[in-house]
């Protein structure tokens, strides 16, 4: 199996990145599917990455524990800020979560004693193996697919289309929104924790505005009709730069062009091309 080994030597980071990006895309799928435009997942990813990284490096914790706490802490933070923040809707929610993300990034940047500040956190052991990522992705996908097919998924779609009507049908909309926000935070944190343990080095700027925008693009590009959309989005955004490697200088340019072309051709994401939404024309109302 020589070719497998040499393949892995060259492409391991890429494959693992595909996995963690799928997790990130799934984390944003959850909130987008409810019609919530939250951009906080990059910050949650950062919290997860630093938590897990610090625990492994400084506290010598076993990998699984680091992963666990890497998912738990962002979830707790999400729980804390979720209640007041989710009262906002539409672009205001996006902006508030964006501001939150910046606050997190700056806090990490300035807590030099703990996090290493701008110099980042170095020397994180490369503990993530392909089956950790595969397991995480597989499990998450399974859970989300089952959720989507259940009454919880139906309620989420209903919330996306008309929050007030859904609330008046006896459903606790606030609780549902908080649930997807917290779960999304945990997933993003897990992705960050896994990612930290194969990139060896993390720094605050990796979890800022650019990352948040990238995660959002994955979600929108793939399509929010189904968790599979997130998978498509995650794979595409990760692999596209690689596929275009041969183009050298023009790579980011073509990257951008492809993004534009896809959105123009299928504004509701690639999943929508494969499984067009039923019903009358026009997007669901999102406040």
């Amino acid at each position, binding site marked *: 199996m020589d070719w497998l080994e040499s393949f892995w030597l060259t492409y391991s980071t890429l494959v693992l990145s595909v996995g963690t990006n799928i997790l990130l895309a799934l984390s944003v799928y959850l909130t987008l599917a409810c019609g919530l435009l939250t951009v906080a997942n990059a910050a949650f990813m950062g919290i997860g990455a630093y938590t897990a990284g610090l625990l492994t490096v400084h506290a010598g914790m076993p990998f699984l524990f680091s992963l666990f706490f890497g998912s738990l802490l962002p979830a707790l933070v999400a729980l804390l800020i979720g209640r007041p923040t989710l009262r906002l809707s539409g672009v205001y929610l996006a902006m508030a979560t964006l501001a939150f993300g910046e606050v997190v990034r700056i806090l990490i940047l300035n807590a030099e004693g703990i996090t290493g500040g701008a110099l980042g956190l170095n020397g994180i052991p490369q503990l993530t193996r392909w089956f950790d990522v595969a397991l995480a992705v597989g499990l998450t996908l399974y859970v989300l697919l089952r959720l989507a097919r259940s009454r919880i998924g139906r309620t989420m779609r209903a919330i996306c289309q008309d929050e007030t009507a859904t609330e008046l049908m006896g459903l606790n909309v606030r609780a549902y929104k908080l649930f997807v926000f917290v779960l999304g935070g945990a997933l993003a944190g897990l992705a960050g924790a896994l990612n930290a343990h194969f990139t060896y080095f993390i720094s605050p700027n990796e979890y800022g505005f650019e990352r948040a925008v990238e995660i959002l693009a994955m979600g929108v590009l793939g399509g929010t009709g189904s968790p599979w959309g997130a998978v498509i989005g995650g794979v595409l955004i990760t692999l596209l730069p690689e596929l275009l490697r041969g183009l050298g200088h023009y790579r980011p340019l073509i990257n951008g062009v492809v993004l534009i072309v896809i959105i123009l051709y299928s504004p509701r994401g690639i999943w929508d091309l494969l499984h067009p939404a039923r019903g*009358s024309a026009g997007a*669901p109302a999102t406040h």
Partner: protein
Amino acid sequence: MLTLSSVSKNFGGLQVLQDVSLTIPGRGIFGLIGPNGAGKTTVFNLVTGLLAPTAGVIEFFGQRLSGMLPHRVTRCGIARTFQNIRIFKEMTLIENVSVALGSRPQYGALSVLVPSRRFREAERRETELARDLLARVGLADKAERPAGMLSYGEQRRLEIARALATEPKLLLLDEPAAGMNSVEKQQVMDEIIKLGESGLSILIIEHDMRFIMGLCGEITVLNFGRVIAHGTPAEIRASPEVIEAYLGREG
């Protein structure tokens, strides 16, 4: 069963409702009428918890509703439809009703994770319940269609089916006959009479006088946020305040 005692509501400087007292004693069909802007929909919004009263108390079977979150109000047994129909256009009829059934779930959240027999049974039961409700309003044959494809009158009936899914004791209908032709109106009237006979209490906001007079046993009239008259259709027709409120507008 439902009492509003001296309920007032103002938005900033705008006094929308003033000292409104209203009682729905029990079974039957009741009407709430008044010129445009009289505050009728605000009453509904206050009862269902979308708004909080500035003053006064709202009670349902003796329980205070003021301050309760909307979804709790629904679970207490009050359901409502909207003036501009708010169904989920992108979902099928069955799905629309199923969402409403979600407030009384047939299975717990964790069992979602395993495709167990209990889960499948529960989902099947829910689908059946949804179909029954659709049949009740005469939409069973269109169950699998996307809701956006229904005619206006059918959409209104879907809304009612959805409201019924929450097993209400009191049904609030906000202009159920709006935008309909006389055939559709008659259908809706028959629908409402059937619902009334099945033991449901119904409070209707409407502009169509014939509709209201033909259905309701008791009518309350609002004008500029105040109650100006209350009584049987005959009494209301004869009331000078009501006549002035409506004719005064046209003058």
